[in-house]
């Protein structure tokens, strides 16, 4: 073993000081960096959302001018999506994928370092626009031309920031996909992989397929603005609607990039605390694969009102509704996993359960939006805002929080405080519904999105929503305290290697905290650590 080391590692333990983090090629270090980065971005994006909710607390213009309001909605979305949720999922993949498949590290550790370090620089470019002439981008995160072409000095900074984020996502995705395809321990066949790994395999595929398309779209914006091309100008034979097609060809798979890893996390946590194996492992895999496939042929449901031919409206309507089928399979399987399980409700489980309930609400509103004739009423209203926040906050974000509570004892060797965790869950669950449920009503009644003012009849719903938003934000400090003091600063009770009684998988076979290098020689996977249990083949009828 030690001989082995010397021949393959010039350098072993972490370096000291700041250079450790700049130079690290270790998946655990980089996972930590990704997660801290996401944490900071969630905070910045959260402050922006509070500015939005502050302005919308009452009708009329009170706190900020309309341009700045629009910058806030735009920047909030870009930061939360590209700076918060995506890096957080990549951070979890960094930490967990190598441990779950029994690999020594990600396949391309230096590329992994690059993928992370691009992010702070990309977001410096993006955030610096807040201080520029003409203000930060204010066209909405979808950056539709011709409006986006009126952006001031911020414009090229935004475009190049997105290019950099794209490079980061693609390198990260290639790394994860290659690790999964090439570095599994012997015996870990594809259909024995933990579902989190499966979810990331599919997510990585979506990333590699769609981020370049986004890069192409924003490149066309750049040349339209500065180099006289006419991609999105009808006078030159182009079409602004063309941008929307290209953008959403990326954009819809992107929303699944934001949710598939969440499916993986929830499918990991529920069996642990129900003390049963996951119901319908194979169907979970096939459901994710079909969701990924379908996500490429539904994009124009974001454009029902743009003036598409009827055949287009119908095709995209039915294709979109089809996605509800594999999604339904997944929800069914989560519930069936809990059926007659011996359940306990530790914090990760609470967040996973919150996910199942509240994400499903977002799925239902999605189905309503998928009905093209109805979407003419809902489109660009607060109903859409309610929809995507239900899938993104109590969906994606809850799953990230659940995963953090679930795995952090393994990373740090110390338990968070269970009481504070439960308090955090209940406050968050209540606050998030206060924030977003009323937006359904405001939207159905006709309140448009992305406007700093509104008609007085919407006031009540908006007041509730704003109160909920501040309440949610404050509740997250309980989480920050709990994680930082108890886990990061190691004040909490020491964690055992298994951490959770019902947990299975290779990551639980190493000590807590997990050593800096795990599985330098591939582990032997015992039957009890295989989380993938296939449906029993029906017993052969006995012959007389």
């Amino acid at each position, binding site marked *: 073993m030690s001989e082995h080391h010397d021949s393959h590692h010039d350098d072993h333990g972490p370096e000291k000081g700041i250079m450790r983090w700049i130079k690290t090629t270790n998946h655990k270090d980089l996972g930590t960096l990704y997660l801290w980065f996401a944490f900071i971005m969630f905070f910045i994006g959260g402050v922006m959302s509070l500015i939005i909710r502050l302005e919308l607390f009452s009708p009329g213009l009170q706190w900020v001018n309309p341009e700045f309001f629009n910058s806030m909605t735009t920047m909030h979305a870009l930061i939360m999506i590209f700076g918060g949720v995506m890096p957080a999922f990549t951070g979890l993949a960094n930490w967990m994928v190598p441990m779950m498949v029994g690999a020594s*590290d990600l396949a391309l550790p230096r590329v992994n370092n690059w993928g992370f370090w691009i992010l702070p620089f990309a977001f410096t470019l993006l955030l610096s626009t807040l201080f520029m002439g003409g203000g930060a981008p204010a066209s909405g995160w979808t950056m539709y031309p011709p409006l986006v072409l009126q952006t001031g000095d911020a414009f090229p900074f935004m475009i190049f920031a997105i290019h950099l984020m794209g490079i980061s996502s693609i390198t990260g995705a290639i790394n994860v996909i290659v690790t999964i395809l090439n570095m599994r321990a012997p015996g870990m066949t594809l259909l024995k992989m933990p579902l989190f790994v499966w979810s990331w395999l599919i997510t990585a595929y979506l990333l590699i397929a769609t981020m370049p398309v986004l890069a*192409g779209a924003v490149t066309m914006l750049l040349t339209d603005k500065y180099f006289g091309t006419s*991609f999105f100008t009808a006078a030159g034979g*182009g*079409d602004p*609607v063309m941008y929307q097609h290209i953008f959403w060809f990326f954009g819809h798979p992107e929303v699944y990039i934001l949710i598939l890893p969440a499916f993986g996390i929830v499918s990991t946590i529920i069996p642990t605390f129900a003390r049963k194996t996951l119901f319908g492992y194979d169907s979970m895999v096939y459901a994710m694969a079909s969701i990924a496939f379908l996500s490429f042929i539904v994009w124009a449901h974001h454009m029902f009102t743009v003036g598409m031919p009827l055949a287009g409206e119908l095709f995209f309507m039915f294709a979109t509704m089809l996605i509800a089928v594999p999604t339904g399979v997944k929800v069914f399987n989560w519930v069936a996993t809990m059926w007659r399980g011996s359940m306990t409700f530790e914090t990760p489980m609470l967040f996973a359960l919150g996910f199942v309930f509240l994400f499903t609400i977002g799925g239902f509103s999605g189905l309503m939006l998928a009905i093209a004739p109805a979407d003419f009423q809902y489109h660009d209203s607060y109903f859409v805002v309610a929809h995507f926040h239900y899938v993104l906050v109590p969906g994606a974000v809850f799953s990230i929080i659940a995963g953090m509570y679930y795995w952090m004892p393994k990373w740090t060797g110390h338990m968070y405080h269970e009481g504070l965790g439960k308090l955090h869950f209940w406050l968050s669950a209540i606050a998030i519904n206060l924030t977003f449920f009323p937006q359904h009503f405001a939207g159905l009644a006709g309140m448009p999105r992305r406007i700093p003012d509104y008609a007085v009849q919407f006031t009540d719903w908006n007041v509730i929503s704003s109160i909920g938003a501040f309440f949610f934000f404050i509740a997250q400090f309980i989480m920050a305290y709990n994680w930082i003091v108890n886990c990061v600063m190691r004040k909490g009770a020491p964690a055992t290697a298994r951490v959770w009684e019902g947990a299975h998988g290779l990551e639980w076979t190493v000590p807590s905290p997990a050593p800096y290098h795990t599985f330098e020689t591939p582990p032997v996977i015992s039957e009890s650590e295989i989380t993938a249990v296939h449906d029993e083949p029906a017993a052969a009828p006995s012959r007389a």
Partner: protein
Amino acid sequence: MSSNTGGYFVPAPTAWPFYLTIGLFLMLGGVSNYLNGHGASMLIWTGLAISLAFIWIWFRGIINESESGKYGQQVDMTYRWGMGWFIFSEVMFFGAFFGALFYARQLSLPWLGGSDVMTNAVLWPQFENAWPTNGPGGVGGDFGIIPPWGVPFLNTMLLLTSGVTLTFAHHGLRENKPRRNVILWMWATVALGCIFLFFQAEEYIVAYQHLNLTLESGIYGSTFFMLTGFHGMHVTLGTLMLLVITLRLMKGHFKSDSHFGFEGVAWYWHFVDVVWLGLFVFVYIL
């Protein structure tokens, strides 16, 4: 092949990617300032120099590691998968621009020309759909186009031939033919790439100086130059990669049974080749 056989090469900590990112950051920040009309050439050139330096250093590091035998079978497989997925991402990037071309020709131009929808009647009743076009506004003024069966056809032949010479080189390497032959085939490939680029540049000059076909010639000019331009950038990169491989061959790198550095570049070159075929058909002929 998919199992972790142990002893996977894990590189030592390194700041190369970090410095590369600083280079990119300075360069892109500089370009942004430049586009906003502020001078920033210092930033751009410094950033570019730093980026290129660290790309060089990083690849040199990889080559050294590879030649000193640190990469086993499994690392080789990693590079294969990695390169394959990288090329897939490039395909999707070109897909966005081909998509724009198809969308304009199949949907938005017919609509502007009066089929199906009201756009034509409301906006430009006199506009008729045709290709090539710079749109109802005649953006960029009248222009001529490059006929496909002249230089573009020649370029097609050049690239196809370069694919063949590259394959000869590859077979030579695999079958342990004399190095000199392999290297000659490689130089032939590099030369073909350079000639292609030369003709492409020539074509652009003709387009700009004689045909008034520019990036600003409406949707035709936009798609023409963005597609051929990005392709040309990829040929440039590919030729540089071929050159590096050739020099490495001359230094005695690569073994007959292990030379993914060579194969990866060959994959890339074939990808560039295939994109060109798409361009030749959809941009020049049709």
